[in-house]
């Protein structure tokens, strides 16, 4: 049973990590705490749901579409609304993104009603043996793809020139501007990438969890804890912290009972904030000075 809980926790942790990477990047690069992030997770799941039920597209093939749709949405919101806000006050972004979240959530309810829906791929009930425990195939796929996307994004930031522009803006906004990088465009790109990653996480979770307008919000606690645990703006920190969070959650449920899962998570969160606010892997990012 302990082995089963451990494996499940680690696999779920991979998905949590992916759900957090975009949020953490947006915070790290422009100091915006994007409360609408969980809406992107929900919408990513709904894009997958629509493609699956209406057009019979496999959820895994629907994922790139969901990512693209969320990229466009995130890019547009940043360009039209948030870039104007950042110039005035950073903490105002909390309120604005709260407003955007209200709009997106309500629009989802209006479009799809509050009914709970599900995406059942043909391989949904298949299980595979991992280290002597039986694991649902979809969980394994979700964790594996999460890790792969996270690593791909990490490599993108380090190797691609666009990625390096994002990192440079995060480290020093003024100097990167002098180097010919347009911060407005970098912000929009970061927001788009963050939303796309959230969309991917939503797409993968649609195979694991029931799809409803509130499914994204259920990630909110995990997203905050993992961001702080991994260090704000750190992709590698996010991925490691995601696994760690999944593991701690699973063990807390195993030894203390499911009621204590959230208390342990918040205790961990407050503990890290007070003792090591820069997180496990945190470095000097713009978000820290704001």
């Amino acid at each position, binding site marked *: 049973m302990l082995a089963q809980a451990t494996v499940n926790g680690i696999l779920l942790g991979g998905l949590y990590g992916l759900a957090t990477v975009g949020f953490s990047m947006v915070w790290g690069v422009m100091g915006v*705490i994007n409360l609408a992030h969980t809406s992107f997770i929900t919408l990513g799941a709904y894009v997958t749901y629509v493609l699956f039920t209406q057009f019979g597209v496999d959820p895994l093939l629907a994922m790139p579409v969901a990512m693209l749709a969320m990229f466009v949405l995130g890019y547009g919101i940043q360009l039209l609304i948030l870039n*104007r806000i950042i110039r005035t006050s950073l903490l105002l972004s909390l*309120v*604005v993104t*709260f407003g955007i979240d*209200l709009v997106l959530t309500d629009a989802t309810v209006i479009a799809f009603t509050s009914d709970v829906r599900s995406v059942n791929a043909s391989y949904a009930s298949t299980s595979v043996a991992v280290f002597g425990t039986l694991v649902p195939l979809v969980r394994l796929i979700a964790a594996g793809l999460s890790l792969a996307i996270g690593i791909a994004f990490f490599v993108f930031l380090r190797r691609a020139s666009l990625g390096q522009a994002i990192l440079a803006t995060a480290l020093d906004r003024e100097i990167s501007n002098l180097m010919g990088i347009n911060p407005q465009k970098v912000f929009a790109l970061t927001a788009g990438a963050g939303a796309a990653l959230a969309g991917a996480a939503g797409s993968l979770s649609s195979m694991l969890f029931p799809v409803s307008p509130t499914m994204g919000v259920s990630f909110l606690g995990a997203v905050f804890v993992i961001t702080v645990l991994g260090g704000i703006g750190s992709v590698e920190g996010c991925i490691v912290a995601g696994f760690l969070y999944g593991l701690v959650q699973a063990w807390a449920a195993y030894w203390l009972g499911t*009621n204590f899962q959230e208390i342990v998570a*918040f205790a961990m969160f407050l503990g890290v904030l*007070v003792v090591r606010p820069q997180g496990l892997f945190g470095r000097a990012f713009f978000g820290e000075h704001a």
Partner: protein
Amino acid sequence: MSEAAIVQQAPKAATVRPLVWIAVGIGLVVLCAAPIGINAYWLRVLTTVLMYVIVTQGLNVIVGITGYHAFGNGVFFGIGAYACGAAMVAGMPFAAGLVLSVVVSAACAFMLGWPILRLKGHYFAIATVALNLAAIQIIIQIGGITGGAQGLALPLSEWDPKPLYIALYYLMLAGAVASTAVVAILLGRPLGFALRAIRDSERAAAVMGINTTKAKVYAWSISAGLTGFAGGVWAYWITFIEPSSAFDPAVGVKAYIMLIIGGMGSILGPVIGAFALEIVSTLVWSGFLHAHQLVLGVLIVVVCLVAPHGIIDAFARLAKSVRRHNGAA
């Protein structure tokens, strides 16, 4: 933010101040007389507005004056509600419960403040959100006198509903006036100056000899006491509280938005913000039943884009530009 505050304070003095006093006087008379002329629905709306005036003034102390963005300040609303509720279930009168609401909330902020107020900026903001969410789980785990997940039913009043609701309205009104007075008095006291110094530059404030930690903890305790009072009255008004409604993060978030709409760090800003947002959202609710959150969200975004320093500041700027325009012509 600080630039706006300076702009606001400079030209006021002689001409505007009497007008403000007259407006405040008229507003108070209208609010005192209101229960005579309005129906139960609008009495309820106005009581909610006044409740938010108290919560927003509480938030004003820590956010507007001290510059610490306690996004999850709603936690003290819940603590106040539960302190009052538990005390009354244990047999104490409402007045004693209300005193406990204030004292327990302030004491919690005092104890939590020492570690948490060391955090700055966003870290402090999300730590308070975490506190707010953790409180829900803690109440559920404690159980016992708090009722746990099942919620807590407060003893019913012996009064008839109508006079009771009017009495609670006046209690909220008194709280709103008192909390506004607390902010006004605080701004003129040494502590108020110390807090504004911390807001503008904490390091400089420390260099000037201000014990910043102590000042911040005091500010948060005052903030929590005010918020807890609103929670205590709310609990008795609602008569049934549960963790998810008492510690609803939306309470703190809504107050934060009201503070932005009204203007941070000002005395009357929170009052204006609370009235504006709550009445608009009530009208939106009745006008767009199915899409009220959507409309509200759009309104929030538009207000933040158009008037990031609050309504008062936006009107002041507008009036200034009109005056300049007329002068030139």
